[in-house]
């Protein structure tokens, strides 16, 4: 699972090369389809092609060091969806002139303005330092986008409600730490 030391070790041992890329591709593929189908009337095959092109384009930028994991200003997903949205809009313009292009303000989970960069750094630091099991629960929810029943199964919780309660207590704990630590700076 992401965030677990053993995964990194498995990666280094090359037991299954490119597993993380494949997982990343699959995780965002599903979300991209949900987004595209909600906002555009486009065939699945076109959405798939656009997603693939966007994914490859972004990976090529990283591979060619135009973007590096350390200098990424926003998440890979934000870049990916931004490229994907542009390609979807271009496709609409070229193939369905009368169709309305979704307003850019109707964003899915996206990054914020430059003014909020400082807060982002503070939050990132706390998230990266978060211990288990909260790290795993919140990673499954916010990154892997697993349902509560799937999280309960993965974490070995009794049922979905236990997973929900755990997720809530982890979030509240994390928010409390962030608020307490930085309230005096009036950032949040």
């Amino acid at each position, binding site marked *: 699972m992401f965030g677990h030391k053993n995964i990194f070790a498995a990666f280094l041992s090359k037991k299954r*090369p490119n597993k993380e*890329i494949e997982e990343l591709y699959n995780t965002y593929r599903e979300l991209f389809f949900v987004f595209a189908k909600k906002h555009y009337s486009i065939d699945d095959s076109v959405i798939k092609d656009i997603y693939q092109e966007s*994914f490859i384009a972004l990976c090529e930028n990283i*591979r060619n060091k135009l973007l590096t*994991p350390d200098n990424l200003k926003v998440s890979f997903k934000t870049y990916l969806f931004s490229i994907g949205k542009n390609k979807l809009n271009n496709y609409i313009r070229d193939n369905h002139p009368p169709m309305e292009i979704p307003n850019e303000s109707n964003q899915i989970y996206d990054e*914020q303005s430059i003014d909020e960069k400082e807060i982002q750094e503070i939050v990132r630091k706390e*998230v990266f330092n978060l211990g288990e099991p909260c790290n795993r629960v919140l990673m499954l929810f*916010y990154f892997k986008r697993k349902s509560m029943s799937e999280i309960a199964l993965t974490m070995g919780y009794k049922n979905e409600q236990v997973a929900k309660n755990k997720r809530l207590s982890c979030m509240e704990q994390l928010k409390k730490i962030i608020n307490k630590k930085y309230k005096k700076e009036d950032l*949040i």
Partner: protein
Amino acid sequence: MDKRNKLQEKIDDYLFDLLSEEERIAFEQMMAEDENLRNDVELTRQIGNAFQIKGEKEALKEIQHISSKEELKEIIEAAERKHNEKRSTTTRKLLISISAVAATILILVYIGLQSQYSSQQLFDEYYHPEEYMPTSMRGNNSELSQEQAQKLYDVICMIEKGQPETAIDSLRHFYMSFEPTFKEDVQWNLALAYLKVNQRDNAEKILHEIIKKNGDYIQDAQELSKKIKQKRWF
């Protein structure tokens, strides 16, 4: 905790763009009026983004080590193949499940539509030759009547002796040739003979005629007719 859970779910649904248009407008209205909620949504957004970046880190390292665009395409094609396999497995499982449910429903409907009583059960319940006395004999002692009553009794006994088909032929003949006062007795026993050979439709037709005549057998005929038609569940 339930209330807090629901609020957190609403915030996540809003940020994941999972709310309907009406829900989204209502939620944004709430945010406009509630600064704490606005801050909570913003902080959740930041946390969600931070988890994404954290989760992406290992994959980004792998991407840096990809040797060519072709290798990247191969990874994507492999992911797509797995996705298609998963989807076809899911579809196959779904089809199997649907077929199983449909088959179960059909079996249940089939069982439910079966008659509650078998022909033999009904015959056994209503066939009582030892108690038999044609209704027309009651108070009628003419020679012809006695002769026809005896013939009728003999034929009825043939049903029990394992010759129901012969009994049916005789009873149909009797119906044409017997005195009108015997006709209802003949019909009742003909209906029973039809049941004995499992000709339920014919038995029902005869019972229907008896019911129309509104004679001495009407109650038994109505009851038997109802039981012939009665299904197990429906």
